[in-house]
């Protein structure tokens, strides 16, 4: 039956017949990953506060701690400073920036928006990880180039160990970041993520080597992902030796525990 229909639209038809004829189907996996990870990476690199956290502060600390005698460090100062700054960069992106972004993405409904498309859930997670790794690569390249300009000469033998530690750090901090950003309200996430970042920066073994911290604090910090990663990178890049089992196990444990709890508690919506 045809009900009388209101039609007050004038002029030529806006939508030609056949415009919306169904032609459904999922996009290619590569195309979906590229679109999501590419967009998330661009968003991270043009967001002022995130760039401050992930690039500006590490750059300022790298230059400042190398050129100014604020902390008593072994010479050449740049060799002592750079490993900690690389650990800071990873922590900033994988933990703080990741948690804050996820918190606000959830609040603005983007996780749900993407889940409503044909994008598989595992690819949604993979896209976020890819974007996180892309930002870490940008950070490592920029900071290493700057450090090299300041005279940094890393121990070649430790490069492979350093790459492994950076990846493990991404996993440990990333799992904790997702756990934080996926569980609490976005404004609380913002506060907690920044406070944790600041505390770990000063007391977690990032800028001040464990050896220079009070002994009780040093013991605790060695068991934190920040201390394990920074100390491991110092051994690898300054002395060219392996970081030993300790830091690797600490980072692995945080990654596994963080991911396990996150899988159980985080609601991606």
């Amino acid at each position, binding site marked *: 039956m045809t*009900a009388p229909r209101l039609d007050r639209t004038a002029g030529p038809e806006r939508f030609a017949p*056949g415009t919306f004829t*169904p032609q459904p189907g999922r*996009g290619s996996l590569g195309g979906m990953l590229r679109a999501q990870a590419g*967009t998330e990476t661009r968003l991270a690199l*043009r967001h002022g506060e995130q760039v401050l956290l992930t690039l500006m502060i590490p750059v300022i600390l790298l230059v400042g701690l190398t050129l100014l005698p604020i902390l008593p460090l072994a010479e050449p100062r740049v060799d002592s400073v750079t490993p900690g700054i690389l650990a800071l960069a990873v922590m900033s992106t994988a933990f703080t920036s990741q948690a804050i972004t996820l918190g606000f993405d959830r609040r603005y409904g983007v996780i749900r928006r993407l*889940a409503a498309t044909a994008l598989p859930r595992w690819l949604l997670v993979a896209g976020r990880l890819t974007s996180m790794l892309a930002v870490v690569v940008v950070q490592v390249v920029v900071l290493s180039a700057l450090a090299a300009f300041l005279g940094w000469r890393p121990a070649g033998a430790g490069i492979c160990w350093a790459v492994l530690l950076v990846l493990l750090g991404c996993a440990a901090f990333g799992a904790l970041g997702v756990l934080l950003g996926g569980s609490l309200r976005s404004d609380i996430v913002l506060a907690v993520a920044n406070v944790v970042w600041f505390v770990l920066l000063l007391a977690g073994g990032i800028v001040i080597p464990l050896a220079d911290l009070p002994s009780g604090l040093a013991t605790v910090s060695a068991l934190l992902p920040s201390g394990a990663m920074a100390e491991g990178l110092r051994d690898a890049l300054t002395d060219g030796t392996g970081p030993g089992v300790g830091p690797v196990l600490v980072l692995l444990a945080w990654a596994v525990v963080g991911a396990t709890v996150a899988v159980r508690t985080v609601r991606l919506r």
Partner: protein
Amino acid sequence: MTPTPPPLLAAPAVSVRGLVKRYGRTTAVDGLDLRLEPASVLALLGPNGAGKSTTVEICEGFLTADAGEVSVLGIDPAGAPDALRARIGIMPQGGGAYPGVKAEEMLRVVAACSATPLDVRWLIDVLGLDGCRRTPFKRLSGGQQQRLALACAVVGRPELVFLDEPTAGMDPQGRHLVWELVRALRRDGVAVLLTTHLMEEAEALADHVVIMDHGKVVAEGSPAELTSGGDQQELRFRARTGMDVDALARALPTGHSAAETVAGRYVVRGRIDPAVLSAITGWCADQGALADDVQVARRSLEDVFLDLTGRELRS
């Protein structure tokens, strides 16, 4: 690109039988039945908290039902959301996007999830978003965010579209644009399930309207069927006060009732045809009265809705 015609589906696009969803002790959806035919528009109408969004989210696979059968394009949405979501378009309530993403950028991400998406620039232009293509999502107006969300729902050329309050927060121009789009979708063979609490919207767009309250269907039918109330119509007139309404009712065919609502104002309920009208005016003349200001009322969908769901405010 040559669009292939959709397969002729005998099966309904959405079929819901005996759906139940509870949140703790609250029953949000209570034994609901729904059927959306292919290439047609179904409007779920109801006050806030009636269970409309819960029903839609179960059909989309975002929530699971506590009881009942749900079939969307022949698929159980609880079991296979990925296979299903490649074929449907979803506009969640309030949209959803990265806070800092530009409007066009967001649409491109969603378009990439489809095999043969519509042209993104064309869709942006035709939905009146060309002026804010590069505006971050959080700085778009409510109506612009809604139009972007609508673009995201249709960009993948779906067979079936779920629109949860698609015109909430839109100005009249935006609303008519959305209506035009929904009519074009239907014309091109897309099934549309939309929720709304705007009677005008349901009346203007829907082939079939389901009025929900407290998780149940309280009425359904085409807008015309609902507003004519089956055979129920009413005729109102003014005449001198105190006429014998029982005598008037006896003078009319069975099934008609008459009442004096306030002094001098009368209402006759029942099927109103020319013979009934002439019987009423003739009876008044016999009483030496003139039936004045005679009006045959067609109930609006809003009247039906308020009669069924009550007039008190819902929090």
